[in-house]
């Protein structure tokens, strides 16, 4: 169970008392699973033409009357304090309105720390923001310059003189391990899991592997830089933000700046990629404070370097994975322990062991995570947190065990698949992992693989095949409100303060609404991205789609009830109860006798109404309490390694997924392929160069931090079982993060198959293969 699920369940337990029962796990599956019309079609994104033509509005294109521009100044030391700060020259520079430092920054509390279900909090760091002269990490914001133009602000920022008193900083992972903390829980999940005596089982196992896997820091690199435009009007605050946490940001800013929640509006119609990096960080707070001090609207767009300096990424980690197996390969011991970084002022434990708990059966388990404290910008969610690096370690180890046993690695996995959760004993809601493996292996042509490494060669190129499994937990958030307006012309509008970050939210929810309401797709409008709309949770944990489906489904039920009331005695459906009708064919229809039908237009016309509006929240996600709910993948890779240079060229990737109903094959394939490309990057190229001597990131640019270029990305095939999950809305589970885990292991395992070299430290750069 993941922290996302934990968080959701934790809040479920608290809200059970007052949220009306809907969607109980004992109830019947969503009837719409069997009645898909628009759902399941490869509909193109409704925002596509806007984006392709450059007309979709992004935050930093906003220009408000009287708008000014801000530039941040970042600390160049890691630990210490500001001794002298001279802003005289900057303040005298042309166009400068304000130099904001800890001396004149409004006195503010700590940004409420994000939790996935707290709609009042979105922060990533418990450190004060420009409240004192202390420097806690390299790159911390120490000043902001506001000017009439961006160029003036940029120039003036170079004129601010700062002297620091440096203090010793904790920057070395290896040194900090000695002081590692062992949290009792990773959120509410027990950290330490011990079933049987895994060390003893490992020692007595017929076959065993026991190795350490290292993964580096990663930084967020959404193509759209973080940006904010903030404007005060009295005590009313308007914020244009690029965020995946619209409502929590609005609420957190309200509490931070001491104004009523209704006075804060956050607008974020389009986000150019979030991936976990676009929650609340210092830049929103600084911009809002600067707008207040300057008395003018302020725009701030982080530089690419600025994103590296003040937006956390993925923690580095060192994981031990040991697996012991009997003569048939059945696991007797599964040991997964390790270290990652989480400073005390951070909140994200990089839950790399959580996937391990549900992946395989084993006679014994020993699982624990330890956290080291360094003076760094706090790490945060980064697409498929935990699972991405956890799957690299575990799925490499499984491959190593298969090699030791001279057993096909797919077969070894199949022999150890659980039929219920290996630790909790809970049933899976739906779990066709076996089919994902066998379908994928067949499509990929896995049988061509030569088991003996280093035996297939084409000129200087050694060819290899590899595979790896990935998984991601299902999560559905409570608090997903949807407002549904049905108009007399037969059109409907769906609105909610949810997020369109490029994954197709508006498109898929329009498809869903069309089917849920029995209307043509063209009659549906979906409006997102504004805190003035009804509240929705963050877009995180791959939970937004199903959360909104549940919200819209609840709203549709309310709409049905309201229409029944409005239909009146002359209606063909007069006398029927809610349970006896459903929404279909542009109206209400009797379940028992489909000939009894009353159209929306007719009902509204008779009632003299132009429109009907209902608002409802999704039911509490009780399904998560009763079932173990996971999506799974089987990833296959074919690649070449140059025997001369060690360069790796991936020729093919295939992802075979078991993830419930696919709502839109086009957007789903895009999500899964994109996730797989991030996995490819984590395997071969991505690495934050964190200079442990100083605590400074040395490659804060897309030229120097290598995400895969087009030439690095091979043809990627995706396929799915398509089996609906009977316990979820529409049978769907989130897929935003599922593509990534398993890819790095599949690549590392293919490298081993090609060369006989086992690389246990990412990224697999050529020097490791020379």
């Amino acid at each position, binding site marked *: 169970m993941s922290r996302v699920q934990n968080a959701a369940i934790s809040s479920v337990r608290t809200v059970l008392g007052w949220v009306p029962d809907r969607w109980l796990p004992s109830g019947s599956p969503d009837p719409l699973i069997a009645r898909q019309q628009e759902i399941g079609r490869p509909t193109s994104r409704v925002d596509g033409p806007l984006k392709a033509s450059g007309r979709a509005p992004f935050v930093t294109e906003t220009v408000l009357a009287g708008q000014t521009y801000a530039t941040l100044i970042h600390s160049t030391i890691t630990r210490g304090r500001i001794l002298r700060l001279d802003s005289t020259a900057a303040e005298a520079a042309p166009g400068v309105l304000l130099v904001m430092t800890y001396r004149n920054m409004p006195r503010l509390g700590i940004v409420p720390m994000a939790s996935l279900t707290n709609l009042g909090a979105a922060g990533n760091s418990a450190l004060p923001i420009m409240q004192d002269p202390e420097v806690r990490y390299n790159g911390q914001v120490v000043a902001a310059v506001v000017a009439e133009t961006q160029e003036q602000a940029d120039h003036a920022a170079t004129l601010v003189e700062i002297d620091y008193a440096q203090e010793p900083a904790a920057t070395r992972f290896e040194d900090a391990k000695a002081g590692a903390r062992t949290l009792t829980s990773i959120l509410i999940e027990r950290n330490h899991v011990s079933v049987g005596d895994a060390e003893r089982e490992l020692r007595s196992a017929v076959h065993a592997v026991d190795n350490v896997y290292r993964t580096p820091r990663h930084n967020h690199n959404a193509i759209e830089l973080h940006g904010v435009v903030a404007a005060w009007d009295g005590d009313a605050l308007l914020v244009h933000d690029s965020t995946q946490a619209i409502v929590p940001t609005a609420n957190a800013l309200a509490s931070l700046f001491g104004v009523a929640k209704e006075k804060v509006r956050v607008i974020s119609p389009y986000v150019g990629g979030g991936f976990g990096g676009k929650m609340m960080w210092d830049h929103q707070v600084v911009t809002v404070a600067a707008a207040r001090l300057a008395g003018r609207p302020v725009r701030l767009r982080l530089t690419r370097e600025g994103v590296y300096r003040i937006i956390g990424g993925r923690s580095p980690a060192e994981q031990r994975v040991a697996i012991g197996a009997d003569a048939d390969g059945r696991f007797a011991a599964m040991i997964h322990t390790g270290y990652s970084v989480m400073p005390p002022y951070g909140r994200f434990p990089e839950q790399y062991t959580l996937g391990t708990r549900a992946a395989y059966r084993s006679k014994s388990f020993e699982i624990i995570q330890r956290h080291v404290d360094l003076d760094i910008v706090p790490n945060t969610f980064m697409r498929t947190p935990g699972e991405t690096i956890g799957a690299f370690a575990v799925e490499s180890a499984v491959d190593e065990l298969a090699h030791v046993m001279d057993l096909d690695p797919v077969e070894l996995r199949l022999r150890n698949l659980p039929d219920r959760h290996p630790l909790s004993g809970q049933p899976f809601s739906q779990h066709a992992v076996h089919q994902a493996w066998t379908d994928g292996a067949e499509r990929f042509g896995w049988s061509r693989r030569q088991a003996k490494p280093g035996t297939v060669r084409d000129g200087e190129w050694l060819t290899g095949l590899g595979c790896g499994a990935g998984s991601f937990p299902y999560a559905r958030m409570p608090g997903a409100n949807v407002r549904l307006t049905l108009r007399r012309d037969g059109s409907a509008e769906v609105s909610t303060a949810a997020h369109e970050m490029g994954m197709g939210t508006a498109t898929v929810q329009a498809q869903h609404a069309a089917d849920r309401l029995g209307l043509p797709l063209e009659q549906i409008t979906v409006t997102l991205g504004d805190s003035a709309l009804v509240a929705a949770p963050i877009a995180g944990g791959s939970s937004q789609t199903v959360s909104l489906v549940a919200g819209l489904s609840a709203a549709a039920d309310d709409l049905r009830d309201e229409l029944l009331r409005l239909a009146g005695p002359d209606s063909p459906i007069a006398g029927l109860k809610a349970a006896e009708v459903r929404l279909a064919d542009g109206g209400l229809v009797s379940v028992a006798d489909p000939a009894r039908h009353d159209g929306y237009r007719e009902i509204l016309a008779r009632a003299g109404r132009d429109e009907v509006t209902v608002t409802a929240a999704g039911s509490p996600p009780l399904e998560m309490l009763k079932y173990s709910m996971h999506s799974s993948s089987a990833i296959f890779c074919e690649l070449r390694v140059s025997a001369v*240079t060690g360069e790796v060229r991936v020729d093919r990737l295939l992802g075979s997924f078991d993830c419930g109903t696919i709502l839109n094959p086009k957007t789903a394939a895009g999500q899964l392929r994109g996730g797989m490309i991030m996995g490819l990057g984590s395997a071969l190229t991505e690495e934050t160069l964190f200079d442990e001597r100083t605590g400074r990131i040395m*490659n804060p640019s897309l030229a120097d931090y290598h995400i895969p270029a087009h030439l690095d990305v091979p043809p990627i095939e995706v396929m799915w079982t398509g089996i609906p999950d009977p316990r979820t809305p529409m049978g769907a589970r989130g897929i935003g993060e599922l593509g990534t885990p398993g890819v790095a292991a599949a690549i590392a395992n293919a490298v081993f198959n090609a060369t006989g070299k086992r690389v246990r430290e990412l990224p697999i750069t050529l020097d490791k293969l*020379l």
Partner: protein
Amino acid sequence: MNPVQYRRAESVEDAFPGAQWRLLGGGTNLVDLMRKGVEHPAGLLDVTGLSEEIAASDDGGLVIGAAARNSAVAAHPLVRRRYPMLARAILAGASAQIRNMATVGGNLMQRTRCAYFADAAGSRCNKRAPGSGCDAIGGFTRYHAIFGASPECVATHPSDMAVALAALDARVNVAGPGGTRTIPLAEFYRLPGDRPDLETTLGADEIIVSVAMPASPFAGASAYRKVRDRASYAFALVSVAAGVTLRDGVVDDVRIALGGVAARPWRALRAEETLRGTRPTDEAIDAAITAELASAEPLPGNEFKIELVRRTTVAVLSELRGTPA
């Protein structure tokens, strides 16, 4: 970034604006460095209006105007026919968009991509601020030198094009207030010594007018191979530009230039010398490049380049020896 003056040069004679000015080509490196606070010119003199002509010379060679765009050079029929190695080197560099902007003169004058050099705000660098120290030593050295470095500086020159030009015995035609002169490419770049801030032998008031290449016997048997951390848009960890001619199975002439290993394109003169007059077997090539590498001094973190240079050079030359000259 500071306010700067800007004007366009109308002629070479117009292009000597004074010490605080910088000549602007495509700006793909200089403007970045200005934004990062590494470069602080008082003004930018745009020289992209000067010669971008690519023309055959009477001796069978080629003269490329300094303002020629990288993409134009790589696509030019004469370049592709006479100096395919040069076309390949250029196309191995940067991205299509950058090559469309970048000029030949600007490419030669680009600065090192050492991360510590680029980090004006947070790192020490003797090249950027003479005498301040070098944070690259002991830091990330993957892109740093194994040849010709000094305790003051271990940076490499990042150009792919210049490596091919070095192998092709190109000459750099320059002009200054006192007239014109020609600098062999091999003498164009300085090694860092105790003055890593001095990168070329170009005078402070001189401008590159063109690059001239002599007729090359290597057109049919030359190669540029770049080894890097991703398939495109990455600087070379190591690159090899090489050409070879054989007579009766024996090396008649050979050129080997290495990129990514020194503050200048590194002509492997010792390896060339060792190979001339020998049968270019794998063993002979290996022995030759191993002799060259005897003077290499890797840093902690880039020791792998020794093996990478050796293997890549052997692979390139063993392939070329099978190609008719």
